[in-house]
């Protein structure tokens, strides 16, 4: 076990964990931030997507020891955010009633938010390219795309 000070959703948290523990399990087991989901453990499904310094990463495949003083943002952070972008994305998800089972949606939202940050007016191809790593078995892909476009329309 080793001690880490990690910046999560704007607050520094003290964590005592094995250095190779993936960020995903630090969030879920050590910090009770369970909005970040486990789906595959090998960065193939996107359910565990969080932001590291604003960029989307797969938290199942990043060890806590490599985070250092970089900022982690989770779905809980996005949810409480007062930023315009985050709120527009959340509203769009609700407007289009995107979720079915809902399990993959926090990962989808994290990835969509990261996309819109760097590309506020994405084309269909941009959306496809950015979102292709996030699996939804329920098949909400068309609604996710519509929600991203709705959010983008309000950003530009």
């Amino acid at each position, binding site marked *: *076990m080793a001690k880490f000070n990690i910046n999560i959703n704007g607050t520094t948290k003290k964590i005592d*964990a*094995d250095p*190779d*523990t*993936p960020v995903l*399990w630090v969030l*879920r*087991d*050590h910090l*009770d*931030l*369970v*909005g*970040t*989901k*486990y*789906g*595959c*453990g*090998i960065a*193939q*499904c996107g*359910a565990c997507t969080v932001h590291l310094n604003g960029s989307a990463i797969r938290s199942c495949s990043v060890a806590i020891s490599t985070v250092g003083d970089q900022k982690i943002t*989770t*779905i*809980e952070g996005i*949810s409480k955010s007062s930023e315009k972008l985050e709120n527009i994305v*959340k509203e769009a*998800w*609700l407007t289009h*009633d995107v*979720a*079915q*089972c*809902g*399990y*993959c*949606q*926090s990962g989808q*939202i994290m990835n969509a938010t990261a996309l819109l940050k760097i590309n506020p007016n994405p084309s*269909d191809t941009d*959306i*496809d*390219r950015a*979102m*292709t*790593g*996030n*699996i*939804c*078995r*329920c*098949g*909400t*892909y*068309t*609604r*996710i*795309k519509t929600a991203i476009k709705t959010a983008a329309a309000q950003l530009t």
Partner: protein
Amino acid sequence: MTLVKTKYNRRSFLKVSAASGGGMMLGFSWLASCNPTKEQALSMPESWFDINAFIKIGENGLVTIFSPNPEIGQNIKTSMPMVVAEELDVAWKNVIVEQAALDTHKYERQIAGGSQSIRRGWQGLRMAGATARHMLMEAAANEWKVTVSSLSTNEGIIKHDESNRTMSYGQMAATASTLEVPENIELKDPKDFKIIGQPTKNVDGEKIISGAPLFGLDFKREGMKISMIEHSPAFGMKLKGFNEEVIKSMPGISDVLVVNTAPKEAAWSNVNAFTEVIAIVGNTTWQVMKAKKALIVEWEWDSPAEDSQDHEFKLAQSLQTGVKELARKDGNAEEAFKKAHNVIEKTYSAPFLAHNTMEPMNFFADVSKAKAELIGPIQTPEAMGKSISNLLDIPIENVTVMLTRMGGGFGRRLYGNFGLEAATISYNTGKPIKLIYTREDDMTQGVYRPAYKVKYRAALDEKNELIGFSIHGTGIHGSPVFENRFPAGAVPNYLAEKMSIDSNISTGAWRAPRSNFIAGAEQSFLDEVAEAAGKDPIDFRLELFDRAIKNPIGTDNDYDPQRYAGVLELVRDKSNWGVKTEGVYRGVSAYFCHNTYVAQVLDMVLINGKHKIKKVWCAIDCGIVINPEGAINQAEGGIIDGIGHAMYSNLTFDKGSPIQKNFDTYSMIRHHQAPSEIEVFFVDNGIDPTGLGEPTLPPISGALANAIYQASGQRLYKQPFIQQDIKLG
């Protein structure tokens, strides 16, 4: 207005003025398991009055409606309470929805399966609302000394029209909860529905997008340990020994044990190839995962290893020489083939599929010799409770099962072996534990969609009339054939035969069981027969429905040809079928399953020589639509899921082991492969509602194959289609 007899007796309604729902949720944060909005949470009532098993009303008029059935993403946690609220006559904004726990005394059929929640729940949900409304009116009538019939209600307000007096449900809730349940009750005329038919947002929508702890995997209780299992790597293998001492000494690990969940008497929900597994219990998920990776296990064979080549061979052999069960025979199909002008014969096949719910299997268990407490995602809570009672000799009344929201079901969570494992691990270690499957555990554990092969034959006479039809279907395990479905009933000479192959690979229900394969095969075949007959594929089907309407063959046909034709005509008209657009290739398909009729047209375009699904048009007859928002979402999801599995997904075996163990090798449909647009149309006929979780999935693979044929000239007989090197354009 319909007068119905209530089947309630006094005992099914507990007259309790409970202070709050908190005590019922057993360790859940109550606010996390129900859905008050921020405004509602601020004005929570001081007392709740239980009117019946579905409804409690606060003194301030806030209403809690219990949703009885498991929520797997089919959105019944929104639509079932909508039905109750409709008959109760309350404003939807004043309704809080709470997930009910398993309670066989209060509720019937707490199952998520067969797309039956709404269809089977419809009458009971309406009666729950209507009886409660009647009791509230009766309480007001007593208070005002007037007759119940002189009162009316509107959104939670009772009104005496003559005297213009009003009273809220909240004011009457305490008294109403002490009244006798009426024996006869009036239900609303569907034309007066105010909530049913309104697009309504998912009651958990805000919680889902804010990452609230809704799912089984999110459940946590103080002192709870994490557990994982290791099952044998191949079907046909069993445990011989392992490095138990090494694992026990690893950091954070408290227990390592072998658990056996083989039932004394197997119920249908006990499908499980690996009843003996190694269980590891520890403090954190990562510590347990590391211990699991450090396992060195010796396995031994106890039945022969199978691989995908064997399966191919066995399926082909079974069709030719397997033991046939005669399922249906009308006229003489063989005679029709002999005298036919043209015989078309085609064989279709599909592989095993994993369910791949995005939330892997998991369950919380706190079990002692005296009682068992289970919390988690399960489609069949009653069956799981019974199995645990049976396995661990715990009286059934001491077994509780709480339902969490599920990160998908698709049939996998009908089979609760993971709950039995969790219960046994807790029982043996004396600790509350949450069992978690890794994705690899989940994908290699079994209960797969069976692998199928089906042979169709059609006989056309010299006028290109369909005079004979036969279907022979086999699978590992079980035949995919539904002998009484279309085109049975429309063909004078019809033969259906079933075969099945045994295997040590465990299979079970997978979203729209059997239909998920047979619909696409049948609809591709009919497309080919229509072409051979020189007919438009929609006209050809409509001619057959017309025959089944005017002169049905046999008496066991399980579809209504008029409704079947209705959806096909609707999709034809909406999609402008018959109007050709340059560069757009169209396929059509129609199917009836789970009591619902669906017809689809799929438009494909080619972009740089690659297929892209531009649009899917979908017409549905599921009777009354409770929640159009959720219904359209279900339809879209079924279409995307159906396209994905027909096109890309495949589970194969080598020496008894599934080759695909995670999403790096098992292909699931991705964002860019989904249709650009889906448009859904419902038939408005006022018929009692039927299910929507499954029916849009089966036909779409037929529409897809038929569109690919138009684009490429290539017929597709084998799923997944992607492996067939489709030459487009």
